[in-house]
Protein backbone atom coordinates (compact mmCIF):
# COMPACT_ATOMS: atom_id res chain seq x y z
CA UNK A 1 0.00 0.00 0.00
CA UNK A 2 1.46 3.34 -0.96
CA UNK A 3 0.56 6.96 -0.49
CA UNK A 4 -2.46 8.24 1.35
CA UNK A 5 -5.69 6.38 0.85
CA UNK A 6 -8.69 4.86 2.40
CA UNK A 7 -8.36 1.41 3.76
CA UNK A 8 -11.11 -0.33 1.90
CA UNK A 9 -10.59 -3.62 3.64
CA UNK A 10 -11.56 -1.86 6.82
CA UNK A 11 -14.96 -0.97 5.35
CA UNK A 12 -16.13 -4.54 5.76
CA UNK A 13 -16.39 -3.82 9.44
CA UNK A 14 -18.67 -0.88 8.72
CA UNK A 15 -16.89 2.39 9.56
CA UNK A 16 -14.25 3.71 7.17
CA UNK A 17 -10.71 4.13 8.50
CA UNK A 18 -8.18 6.53 7.05
CA UNK A 19 -4.59 5.30 7.14
CA UNK A 20 -1.59 7.42 6.18
CA UNK A 21 1.36 5.47 4.93
CA UNK A 22 4.69 6.76 3.66
CA UNK A 23 6.20 10.21 3.82
CA UNK A 24 6.47 13.28 1.73
CA UNK A 25 2.79 13.69 1.10
CA UNK A 26 1.89 16.04 3.90
CA UNK A 27 3.52 18.60 6.08
CA UNK A 28 4.18 15.97 8.73
CA UNK A 29 7.76 14.85 8.94
CA UNK A 30 8.86 11.45 10.03
CA UNK A 31 12.17 10.50 11.58
CA UNK A 32 14.53 8.64 9.35
CA UNK A 33 16.22 5.48 10.48
CA UNK A 34 19.76 5.33 9.15
CA UNK A 35 22.21 2.51 9.52
CA UNK A 36 25.85 3.42 9.69
CA UNK A 37 27.80 0.28 9.09
CA UNK A 38 28.33 -2.62 9.51
CA UNK A 39 30.61 -1.87 6.57
CA UNK A 40 31.66 1.73 6.99
CA UNK A 41 35.17 3.10 6.81
CA UNK A 42 34.80 5.16 9.98
CA UNK A 43 33.85 2.27 12.23
CA UNK A 44 37.27 0.55 12.18
CA UNK A 45 35.78 -2.83 11.57
CA UNK A 46 32.19 -3.85 11.62
CA UNK A 47 30.29 -1.82 14.17
CA UNK A 48 26.74 -0.93 13.17
CA UNK A 49 25.02 2.16 14.47
CA UNK A 50 21.27 2.36 14.14
CA UNK A 51 20.42 6.05 14.15
CA UNK A 52 17.07 7.78 14.23
CA UNK A 53 17.57 11.12 12.52
CA UNK A 54 15.51 14.24 12.48
CA UNK A 55 17.10 16.06 9.60
CA UNK A 56 20.78 16.28 10.47
CA UNK A 57 20.22 15.78 14.16
CA UNK A 58 20.53 12.40 15.82
CA UNK A 59 17.45 11.54 17.88
CA UNK A 60 18.65 8.22 19.18
CA UNK A 61 21.56 5.93 18.50
CA UNK A 62 21.94 2.26 19.18
CA UNK A 63 25.30 0.56 18.72
CA UNK A 64 24.68 -2.93 17.36
CA UNK A 65 27.60 -5.20 17.96
CA UNK A 66 28.43 -8.80 17.28
CA UNK A 67 29.33 -8.79 13.58
CA UNK A 68 32.86 -9.77 14.43
CA UNK A 69 32.09 -12.29 17.13
CA UNK A 70 34.55 -15.13 16.73
CA UNK A 71 33.77 -17.07 19.89
CA UNK A 72 37.20 -16.49 21.39
CA UNK A 73 36.09 -17.33 24.92
CA UNK A 74 34.58 -20.63 23.80
CA UNK A 75 37.69 -21.47 21.81
CA UNK A 76 39.82 -20.83 24.91
CA UNK A 77 38.07 -23.77 26.55
CA UNK A 78 39.53 -26.21 24.05
CA UNK A 79 43.03 -24.75 23.79
CA UNK A 80 45.94 -25.24 26.13
CA UNK A 81 47.58 -22.26 27.82
CA UNK A 82 50.14 -21.72 25.08
CA UNK A 83 47.53 -21.93 22.34
CA UNK A 84 45.26 -19.48 24.16
CA UNK A 85 47.87 -16.78 23.74
CA UNK A 86 47.57 -17.17 19.96
CA UNK A 87 43.88 -16.33 20.17
CA UNK A 88 44.11 -13.80 22.98
CA UNK A 89 46.45 -11.49 21.13
CA UNK A 90 44.03 -11.28 18.23
CA UNK A 91 40.79 -9.91 19.69
CA UNK A 92 42.27 -6.43 20.06
CA UNK A 93 44.76 -6.44 17.25
CA UNK A 94 46.27 -3.10 18.21
CA UNK A 95 47.30 -4.16 21.70
CA UNK A 96 48.43 -7.72 21.11
CA UNK A 97 51.23 -7.66 23.65
CA UNK A 98 48.99 -6.33 26.42
CA UNK A 99 46.36 -8.96 25.68
CA UNK A 100 48.71 -11.93 25.81
CA UNK A 101 50.18 -10.46 28.96
CA UNK A 102 46.80 -10.53 30.71
CA UNK A 103 46.30 -14.19 29.92
CA UNK A 104 49.78 -15.06 31.11
CA UNK A 105 49.30 -13.08 34.33
CA UNK A 106 46.01 -14.83 35.10
CA UNK A 107 47.49 -18.30 34.57
CA UNK A 108 50.63 -17.45 36.55
CA UNK A 109 48.53 -16.17 39.43
CA UNK A 110 46.43 -19.31 39.50
CA UNK A 111 49.52 -21.50 39.39
CA UNK A 112 51.26 -19.37 42.03
CA UNK A 113 54.22 -18.94 39.73
CA UNK A 114 57.08 -16.54 40.34
CA UNK A 115 58.22 -14.80 37.16
CA UNK A 116 61.95 -13.96 36.91
CA UNK A 117 62.75 -10.30 37.50
CA UNK A 118 64.33 -9.78 34.12
CA UNK A 119 61.17 -11.05 32.43
CA UNK A 120 59.01 -8.72 34.52
CA UNK A 121 60.97 -5.63 33.47
CA UNK A 122 61.17 -6.71 29.84
CA UNK A 123 57.43 -7.33 29.83
CA UNK A 124 56.80 -3.87 31.27
CA UNK A 125 59.01 -2.26 28.64
CA UNK A 126 57.32 -4.14 25.82
CA UNK A 127 53.85 -3.41 27.19
CA UNK A 128 54.63 0.30 27.18
CA UNK A 129 56.03 0.13 23.64
CA UNK A 130 52.83 -1.64 22.64
CA UNK A 131 50.84 1.19 24.23
CA UNK A 132 52.79 3.69 22.14
CA UNK A 133 52.04 1.70 18.98
CA UNK A 134 48.35 1.51 19.82
CA UNK A 135 48.04 5.21 20.62
CA UNK A 136 49.96 6.26 17.53
CA UNK A 137 47.49 4.32 15.42
CA UNK A 138 44.57 6.27 16.87
CA UNK A 139 46.47 9.56 16.77
CA UNK A 140 46.82 9.01 13.05
CA UNK A 141 43.43 7.55 12.25
CA UNK A 142 41.30 9.91 14.29
CA UNK A 143 42.25 13.09 12.39
CA UNK A 144 41.91 11.05 9.19
CA UNK A 145 38.31 10.27 10.04
CA UNK A 146 37.41 13.91 10.41
CA UNK A 147 39.22 14.95 7.29
CA UNK A 148 42.86 15.61 8.18
CA UNK A 149 44.87 13.22 6.07
CA UNK A 150 48.41 14.34 6.95
CA UNK A 151 48.88 13.23 10.60
CA UNK A 152 48.59 9.53 9.79
CA UNK A 153 51.83 9.64 7.80
CA UNK A 154 53.67 11.11 10.76
CA UNK A 155 52.04 8.64 13.14
CA UNK A 156 53.02 5.72 10.94
CA UNK A 157 56.58 6.93 10.61
CA UNK A 158 56.89 6.71 14.39
CA UNK A 159 55.00 3.43 14.49
CA UNK A 160 57.41 1.92 12.01
CA UNK A 161 60.37 2.86 14.21
CA UNK A 162 58.91 1.15 17.28
CA UNK A 163 57.54 -1.70 15.18
CA UNK A 164 61.05 -2.56 13.98
CA UNK A 165 62.18 -2.92 17.59
CA UNK A 166 59.23 -5.14 18.49
CA UNK A 167 59.79 -7.26 15.39
CA UNK A 168 63.45 -7.72 16.18
CA UNK A 169 62.63 -9.15 19.60
CA UNK A 170 59.49 -11.15 18.86
CA UNK A 171 59.52 -11.73 15.10
CA UNK A 172 55.98 -10.39 14.75
CA UNK A 173 54.70 -7.01 13.75
CA UNK A 174 51.19 -7.34 15.13
CA UNK A 175 50.66 -10.65 16.88
CA UNK A 176 53.85 -10.80 18.86
CA UNK A 177 53.40 -14.20 20.56
CA UNK A 178 56.22 -13.24 22.88
CA UNK A 179 54.57 -13.95 26.24
CA UNK A 180 54.53 -17.40 27.70
CA UNK A 181 53.22 -18.67 30.99
CA UNK A 182 56.13 -17.94 33.32
CA UNK A 183 57.84 -15.21 31.33
CA UNK A 184 58.76 -14.53 27.75
CA UNK A 185 59.35 -16.84 24.80
CA UNK A 186 63.07 -16.18 24.61
CA UNK A 187 65.81 -13.76 25.48
CA UNK A 188 66.01 -10.55 23.44
CA UNK A 189 68.85 -10.31 20.89
CA UNK A 190 72.18 -8.81 21.94
CA UNK A 191 72.14 -5.04 21.64
CA UNK A 192 68.37 -4.94 21.50
CA UNK A 193 67.93 -2.73 24.56
CA UNK A 194 70.32 -0.19 23.04
CA UNK A 195 68.46 -0.17 19.75
CA UNK A 196 65.12 0.05 21.57
CA UNK A 197 66.36 3.06 23.52
CA UNK A 198 67.57 4.66 20.29
CA UNK A 199 64.14 4.10 18.73
CA UNK A 200 62.44 5.62 21.77
CA UNK A 201 64.75 8.64 21.56
CA UNK A 202 64.02 9.05 17.89
CA UNK A 203 60.27 8.86 18.38
CA UNK A 204 60.43 11.28 21.29
CA UNK A 205 62.40 13.73 19.19
CA UNK A 206 60.01 13.55 16.24
CA UNK A 207 56.71 13.30 18.10
CA UNK A 208 56.37 17.11 18.49
CA UNK A 209 55.84 17.14 14.71
CA UNK A 210 52.60 15.26 15.17
CA UNK A 211 51.75 17.44 18.14
CA UNK A 212 52.27 20.72 16.24
CA UNK A 213 50.51 19.37 13.21
CA UNK A 214 47.18 18.66 14.81
CA UNK A 215 46.75 19.40 18.51
CA UNK A 216 46.08 23.16 18.16
CA UNK A 217 44.96 23.09 14.53
CA UNK A 218 42.03 25.50 14.29
CA UNK A 219 39.90 23.24 12.10
CA UNK A 220 40.59 20.27 14.34
CA UNK A 221 39.66 22.33 17.40
CA UNK A 222 36.44 23.49 15.78
CA UNK A 223 35.48 19.90 15.06
CA UNK A 224 36.34 18.45 18.46
CA UNK A 225 36.22 21.00 21.29
CA UNK A 226 32.94 20.79 23.16
CA UNK A 227 31.76 17.94 20.94
CA UNK A 228 30.64 14.64 22.47
CA UNK A 229 31.05 15.59 26.11
CA UNK A 230 31.04 12.51 28.30
CA UNK A 231 30.50 13.52 31.94
CA UNK A 232 32.56 11.68 34.51
CA UNK A 233 29.44 10.18 36.10
CA UNK A 234 28.27 8.75 32.77
CA UNK A 235 31.74 7.40 32.02
CA UNK A 236 31.78 5.63 35.38
CA UNK A 237 28.21 4.37 34.95
CA UNK A 238 29.06 2.74 31.62
CA UNK A 239 32.26 1.28 32.97
CA UNK A 240 34.36 3.28 30.55
CA UNK A 241 38.06 3.16 31.34
CA UNK A 242 41.42 4.07 29.93
CA UNK A 243 42.02 7.28 27.98
CA UNK A 244 38.28 7.75 27.36
CA UNK A 245 37.46 7.82 31.08
CA UNK A 246 40.55 9.80 32.02
CA UNK A 247 39.58 12.53 29.54
CA UNK A 248 36.34 12.90 31.52
CA UNK A 249 38.26 13.34 34.74
CA UNK A 250 38.08 9.80 36.11
CA UNK A 251 41.54 9.56 37.63
CA UNK A 252 41.91 5.81 37.44
CA UNK A 253 44.87 3.91 36.10
CA UNK A 254 45.65 0.36 37.17
CA UNK A 255 49.34 0.92 36.58
CA UNK A 256 49.30 3.33 39.51
CA UNK A 257 46.26 2.20 41.51
CA UNK A 258 46.78 -1.54 41.49
CA UNK A 259 50.26 -2.09 40.10
CA UNK A 260 51.05 -5.28 38.29
CA UNK A 261 54.33 -6.22 36.57
CA UNK A 262 57.00 -3.69 37.62
CA UNK A 263 54.70 -0.67 37.72
CA UNK A 264 54.85 -0.67 41.52
CA UNK A 265 58.48 0.40 41.34
CA UNK A 266 57.89 3.07 38.73
CA UNK A 267 56.11 6.32 39.28
CA UNK A 268 53.40 6.39 36.63
CA UNK A 269 52.15 9.87 35.81
CA UNK A 270 48.46 9.57 34.99
CA UNK A 271 47.31 11.90 32.22
CA UNK A 272 43.85 13.30 32.84
CA UNK A 273 41.62 16.02 31.47
CA UNK A 274 38.30 17.27 32.80
CA UNK A 275 36.43 18.49 29.72
CA UNK A 276 35.43 15.01 28.54
CA UNK A 277 35.04 16.13 24.92
CA UNK A 278 36.59 14.67 21.78
CA UNK A 279 39.58 16.99 21.96
CA UNK A 280 40.48 16.05 25.52
CA UNK A 281 40.26 12.36 24.65
CA UNK A 282 42.69 13.00 21.81
CA UNK A 283 44.97 15.01 24.08
CA UNK A 284 45.05 12.28 26.72
CA UNK A 285 46.16 9.84 24.06
CA UNK A 286 48.86 12.16 22.77
CA UNK A 287 50.25 12.94 26.21
CA UNK A 288 50.17 9.28 27.21
CA UNK A 289 52.54 8.50 24.35
CA UNK A 290 55.17 10.77 25.93
CA UNK A 291 54.59 9.12 29.33
CA UNK A 292 54.83 5.61 27.89
CA UNK A 293 58.06 6.41 26.07
CA UNK A 294 59.59 7.57 29.36
CA UNK A 295 58.34 4.50 31.21
CA UNK A 296 59.65 2.15 28.52
CA UNK A 297 63.06 3.79 28.68
CA UNK A 298 63.22 3.46 32.47
CA UNK A 299 62.30 -0.22 32.15
CA UNK A 300 64.99 -0.81 29.53
CA UNK A 301 67.58 0.78 31.81
CA UNK A 302 66.56 -1.64 34.53
CA UNK A 303 66.65 -4.59 32.15
CA UNK A 304 70.30 -3.82 31.48
CA UNK A 305 71.11 -4.07 35.19
CA UNK A 306 69.36 -7.40 35.74
CA UNK A 307 70.76 -10.66 34.55
CA UNK A 308 69.14 -14.02 34.65
CA UNK A 309 66.56 -16.06 32.81
CA UNK A 310 63.46 -14.62 31.17
CA UNK A 311 61.24 -17.62 31.71
CA UNK A 312 60.77 -20.54 34.03
CA UNK A 313 61.16 -24.17 33.09
CA UNK A 314 57.66 -25.52 32.60
CA UNK A 315 56.42 -29.10 32.79
CA UNK A 316 55.58 -30.74 29.45
CA UNK A 317 51.89 -30.19 30.09
CA UNK A 318 50.97 -26.96 31.85
CA UNK A 319 47.96 -27.44 34.10
CA UNK A 320 46.49 -24.70 36.25
CA UNK A 321 45.27 -26.07 39.59
CA UNK A 322 41.57 -26.16 40.36
CA UNK A 323 40.26 -22.74 41.31
CA UNK A 324 39.52 -19.37 39.85
CA UNK A 325 41.22 -16.01 39.64
CA UNK A 326 40.69 -12.58 38.19
CA UNK A 327 43.53 -10.62 36.72
CA UNK A 328 43.15 -7.15 35.28
CA UNK A 329 45.52 -4.96 33.38
CA UNK A 330 45.61 -1.42 32.09
CA UNK A 331 45.44 -2.11 28.37
CA UNK A 332 46.11 0.74 25.96
CA UNK A 333 42.38 1.22 25.51
CA UNK A 334 41.32 0.70 29.12
CA UNK A 335 40.87 -1.95 31.76
CA UNK A 336 40.98 -5.51 30.49
CA UNK A 337 39.90 -8.25 32.88
CA UNK A 338 40.53 -11.97 32.65
CA UNK A 339 38.40 -14.28 34.77
CA UNK A 340 39.95 -17.71 34.68
CA UNK A 341 38.22 -20.78 36.06
CA UNK A 342 40.21 -23.98 36.03
CA UNK A 343 39.23 -27.51 36.97
CA UNK A 344 42.81 -28.69 36.95
CA UNK A 345 42.86 -29.60 33.27
CA UNK A 346 45.35 -28.42 30.70
CA UNK A 347 42.65 -26.17 29.26
CA UNK A 348 40.67 -23.60 31.27
CA UNK A 349 37.12 -24.51 32.15
CA UNK A 350 36.12 -20.95 31.42
CA UNK A 351 38.01 -17.80 30.57
CA UNK A 352 35.91 -14.67 30.56
CA UNK A 353 37.25 -11.51 29.00
CA UNK A 354 36.28 -8.05 30.15
CA UNK A 355 37.42 -5.82 27.35
CA UNK A 356 37.83 -2.07 27.43
CA UNK A 357 36.35 -1.40 24.01
CA UNK A 358 33.10 -3.14 24.90
CA UNK A 359 32.37 -0.79 27.78
CA UNK A 360 33.60 2.29 25.96
CA UNK A 361 31.30 1.65 23.02
CA UNK A 362 28.26 1.39 25.30
CA UNK A 363 28.64 5.06 26.20
CA UNK A 364 27.84 5.96 22.57
CA UNK A 365 24.12 5.48 23.24
CA UNK A 366 24.12 8.55 25.51
CA UNK A 367 26.79 10.54 23.70
CA UNK A 368 25.25 10.56 20.26
CA UNK A 369 21.61 11.69 20.77
CA UNK A 370 21.35 15.42 20.12
CA UNK A 371 24.48 15.74 18.02
CA UNK A 372 24.71 16.33 14.28
CA UNK A 373 25.68 13.63 11.81
CA UNK A 374 29.14 15.13 11.04
CA UNK A 375 29.82 15.30 14.79
CA UNK A 376 28.83 11.69 15.07
CA UNK A 377 31.91 10.63 13.15
CA UNK A 378 34.06 12.86 15.36
CA UNK A 379 32.59 11.30 18.50
CA UNK A 380 32.71 7.73 17.20
CA UNK A 381 36.37 8.02 16.30
CA UNK A 382 37.27 9.63 19.62
CA UNK A 383 35.93 6.71 21.67
CA UNK A 384 39.04 4.72 20.66
CA UNK A 385 37.80 1.18 20.32
CA UNK A 386 38.68 -1.85 18.26
CA UNK A 387 35.67 -3.76 17.02
CA UNK A 388 37.41 -7.10 17.47
CA UNK A 389 37.84 -6.20 21.11
CA UNK A 390 34.12 -5.38 21.41
CA UNK A 391 32.87 -8.61 19.86
CA UNK A 392 35.70 -10.95 20.89
Amino acid at each position, binding site marked *: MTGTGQDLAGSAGGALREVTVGTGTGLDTADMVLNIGPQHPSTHGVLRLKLVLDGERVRSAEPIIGYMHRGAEKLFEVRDYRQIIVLANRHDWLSAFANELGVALAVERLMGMEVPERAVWLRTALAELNRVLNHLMFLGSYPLEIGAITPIFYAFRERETIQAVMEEASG*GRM*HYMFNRVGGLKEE*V*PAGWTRRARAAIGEVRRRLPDLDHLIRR*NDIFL*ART*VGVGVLPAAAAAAYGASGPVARASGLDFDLRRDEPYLAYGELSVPVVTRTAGDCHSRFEVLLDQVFVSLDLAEQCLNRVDQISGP*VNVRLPKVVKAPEGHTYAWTENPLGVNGYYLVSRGEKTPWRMKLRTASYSNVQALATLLPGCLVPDLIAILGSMFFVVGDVDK
Partner: protein
Amino acid sequence: MVGMSEVPGVGLAKGLAVTLKTMTRRSHTHQYPDVEPDLPPRSRGVIALFEENCTSCMLCARECPDWCIYIDSHKEEVVLPGAARPRQRPVLDRFAIDFSLCMYCGICIEACPFDALYWSPEFEYAEYDIRELLHEKETLREWMWTVPAPPAHDPNGEPAKEQAAAAARQT
Protein backbone atom coordinates in the same frame (compact mmCIF):
# COMPACT_ATOMS: atom_id res chain seq x y z
CA MET B 1 34.45 30.62 18.42
CA VAL B 2 34.79 27.88 20.98
CA GLY B 3 38.16 26.24 21.18
CA MET B 4 39.95 28.53 18.77
CA SER B 5 43.57 29.04 19.68
CA GLU B 6 44.65 32.36 21.17
CA VAL B 7 45.44 33.99 17.84
CA PRO B 8 43.34 32.52 15.03
CA GLY B 9 45.46 30.59 12.58
CA VAL B 10 48.45 29.95 14.82
CA GLY B 11 47.63 26.24 14.96
CA LEU B 12 47.41 26.07 11.19
CA ALA B 13 50.65 27.96 10.75
CA LYS B 14 52.46 25.62 13.13
CA GLY B 15 51.20 22.66 11.16
CA LEU B 16 52.34 24.17 7.89
CA ALA B 17 55.76 24.81 9.42
CA VAL B 18 56.02 21.09 10.21
CA THR B 19 55.08 20.26 6.64
CA LEU B 20 57.67 22.70 5.34
CA LYS B 21 60.35 21.22 7.59
CA THR B 22 59.49 17.68 6.53
CA MET B 23 59.62 18.69 2.87
CA THR B 24 63.31 19.46 3.22
CA ARG B 25 64.10 16.08 4.80
CA ARG B 26 64.70 12.79 3.08
CA SER B 27 61.63 10.65 2.57
CA HIS B 28 61.04 7.62 4.79
CA THR B 29 59.50 5.59 2.00
CA HIS B 30 61.20 2.35 1.01
CA GLN B 31 61.08 1.50 -2.68
CA TYR B 32 59.94 -2.01 -1.87
CA PRO B 33 59.95 -4.19 -4.98
CA ASP B 34 63.25 -2.62 -6.08
CA VAL B 35 64.83 -2.50 -2.64
CA GLU B 36 64.50 -5.56 -0.43
CA PRO B 37 63.28 -4.82 3.08
CA ASP B 38 65.81 -5.39 5.83
CA LEU B 39 64.09 -7.91 8.07
CA PRO B 40 65.44 -9.12 11.41
CA PRO B 41 66.38 -12.82 11.63
CA ARG B 42 63.52 -13.59 14.01
CA SER B 43 60.96 -12.22 11.56
CA ARG B 44 58.12 -14.68 11.14
CA GLY B 45 57.61 -14.83 7.41
CA VAL B 46 57.22 -18.47 6.51
CA ILE B 47 57.82 -21.85 8.11
CA ALA B 48 60.61 -23.89 6.57
CA LEU B 49 61.03 -27.65 6.98
CA PHE B 50 64.41 -29.28 7.42
CA GLU B 51 63.14 -32.56 6.11
CA GLU B 52 66.22 -34.57 7.05
CA ASN B 53 65.58 -33.89 10.73
CA CYS B 54 61.88 -34.76 10.68
CA THR B 55 60.96 -38.07 12.30
CA SER B 56 57.26 -37.66 11.45
CA CYS B 57 56.44 -37.76 15.16
CA MET B 58 53.37 -35.57 14.60
CA LEU B 59 54.03 -33.36 17.63
CA CYS B 60 53.84 -30.18 15.55
CA ALA B 61 50.59 -31.25 13.90
CA ARG B 62 49.04 -32.01 17.29
CA GLU B 63 50.19 -28.81 18.96
CA CYS B 64 49.04 -26.56 16.12
CA PRO B 65 46.08 -24.49 17.37
CA ASP B 66 44.23 -24.73 14.08
CA TRP B 67 45.55 -28.01 12.70
CA CYS B 68 47.03 -26.69 9.49
CA ILE B 69 49.88 -29.23 9.28
CA TYR B 70 49.31 -32.45 7.38
CA ILE B 71 51.69 -35.36 7.83
CA ASP B 72 51.65 -38.82 6.23
CA SER B 73 54.34 -41.35 6.94
CA HIS B 74 55.06 -45.06 6.90
CA LYS B 75 57.61 -47.34 8.56
CA GLU B 76 60.35 -49.01 6.57
CA GLU B 77 62.48 -51.92 7.63
CA VAL B 78 66.21 -51.47 7.31
CA VAL B 79 68.45 -54.49 7.60
CA LEU B 80 71.70 -53.47 9.22
CA PRO B 81 74.62 -55.81 8.70
CA GLY B 82 75.54 -57.46 12.00
CA ALA B 83 72.28 -56.53 13.76
CA ALA B 84 70.12 -59.35 15.04
CA ARG B 85 66.83 -57.88 13.87
CA PRO B 86 65.93 -55.42 11.12
CA ARG B 87 65.42 -51.85 12.35
CA GLN B 88 62.30 -49.78 11.76
CA ARG B 89 62.75 -46.38 10.17
CA PRO B 90 60.04 -43.75 9.73
CA VAL B 91 59.72 -42.35 6.24
CA LEU B 92 57.97 -39.04 5.64
CA ASP B 93 55.53 -39.28 2.74
CA ARG B 94 53.87 -35.95 3.05
CA PHE B 95 54.45 -32.83 5.07
CA ALA B 96 52.26 -29.88 4.14
CA ILE B 97 51.39 -26.61 5.80
CA ASP B 98 48.26 -24.77 4.79
CA PHE B 99 49.31 -21.14 5.04
CA SER B 100 45.75 -20.00 4.47
CA LEU B 101 44.94 -21.44 7.90
CA CYS B 102 48.25 -20.85 9.64
CA MET B 103 48.13 -18.17 12.32
CA TYR B 104 51.93 -17.70 12.33
CA CYS B 105 52.16 -18.36 16.06
CA GLY B 106 55.25 -20.54 15.86
CA ILE B 107 54.04 -23.19 18.30
CA CYS B 108 54.98 -25.98 15.84
CA ILE B 109 58.55 -24.68 15.73
CA GLU B 110 58.70 -24.55 19.52
CA ALA B 111 57.13 -28.00 19.83
CA CYS B 112 59.51 -29.75 17.43
CA PRO B 113 62.01 -31.73 19.51
CA PHE B 114 64.23 -32.51 16.51
CA ASP B 115 64.79 -28.99 15.13
CA ALA B 116 63.09 -29.76 11.86
CA LEU B 117 61.04 -26.56 11.64
CA TYR B 118 62.41 -23.02 11.35
CA TRP B 119 61.10 -19.52 10.81
CA SER B 120 62.27 -17.72 7.71
CA PRO B 121 61.70 -14.01 7.04
CA GLU B 122 60.74 -14.88 3.46
CA PHE B 123 57.31 -13.38 2.78
CA GLU B 124 56.87 -13.19 -0.99
CA TYR B 125 54.57 -16.14 -1.51
CA ALA B 126 51.21 -14.48 -2.06
CA GLU B 127 48.87 -16.30 -4.40
CA TYR B 128 45.81 -15.39 -6.41
CA ASP B 129 43.97 -18.52 -5.28
CA ILE B 130 43.72 -19.40 -1.60
CA ARG B 131 44.18 -23.10 -2.37
CA GLU B 132 47.65 -22.41 -3.71
CA LEU B 133 48.77 -21.54 -0.18
CA LEU B 134 48.90 -25.20 0.77
CA HIS B 135 52.61 -25.91 0.48
CA GLU B 136 54.11 -29.39 0.32
CA LYS B 137 57.41 -30.56 1.76
CA GLU B 138 59.41 -29.79 -1.38
CA THR B 139 58.56 -26.08 -1.16
CA LEU B 140 59.00 -26.06 2.60
CA ARG B 141 62.43 -27.64 2.19
CA GLU B 142 63.41 -25.00 -0.38
CA TRP B 143 62.62 -22.26 2.16
CA MET B 144 65.20 -23.81 4.43
CA TRP B 145 67.83 -21.99 2.32
CA THR B 146 66.36 -18.65 3.37
CA VAL B 147 66.57 -19.34 7.11
CA PRO B 148 69.03 -16.89 8.69
CA ALA B 149 71.31 -17.64 11.63
CA PRO B 150 69.61 -16.80 14.93
CA PRO B 151 70.72 -13.58 16.62
CA ALA B 152 72.99 -13.83 19.65
CA HIS B 153 71.22 -13.46 22.96
CA ASP B 154 71.65 -10.45 25.23
CA PRO B 155 74.74 -11.21 27.37
CA ASN B 156 72.75 -10.35 30.50
CA GLY B 157 70.28 -13.07 29.79
CA GLU B 158 70.68 -16.81 29.48
CA PRO B 159 72.34 -18.16 26.34
CA ALA B 160 70.23 -20.00 23.80
CA LYS B 161 69.61 -23.63 24.72
CA GLU B 162 71.57 -24.78 21.66
CA GLN B 163 74.56 -22.80 22.92
CA ALA B 164 74.21 -24.20 26.42
CA ALA B 165 73.99 -27.74 25.04
CA ALA B 166 77.08 -27.23 22.87
CA ALA B 167 79.06 -25.86 25.84
CA ALA B 168 78.02 -28.84 27.97
CA ARG B 169 79.16 -31.28 25.28
CA GLN B 170 82.60 -29.71 25.03
CA THR B 171 83.41 -30.11 28.73
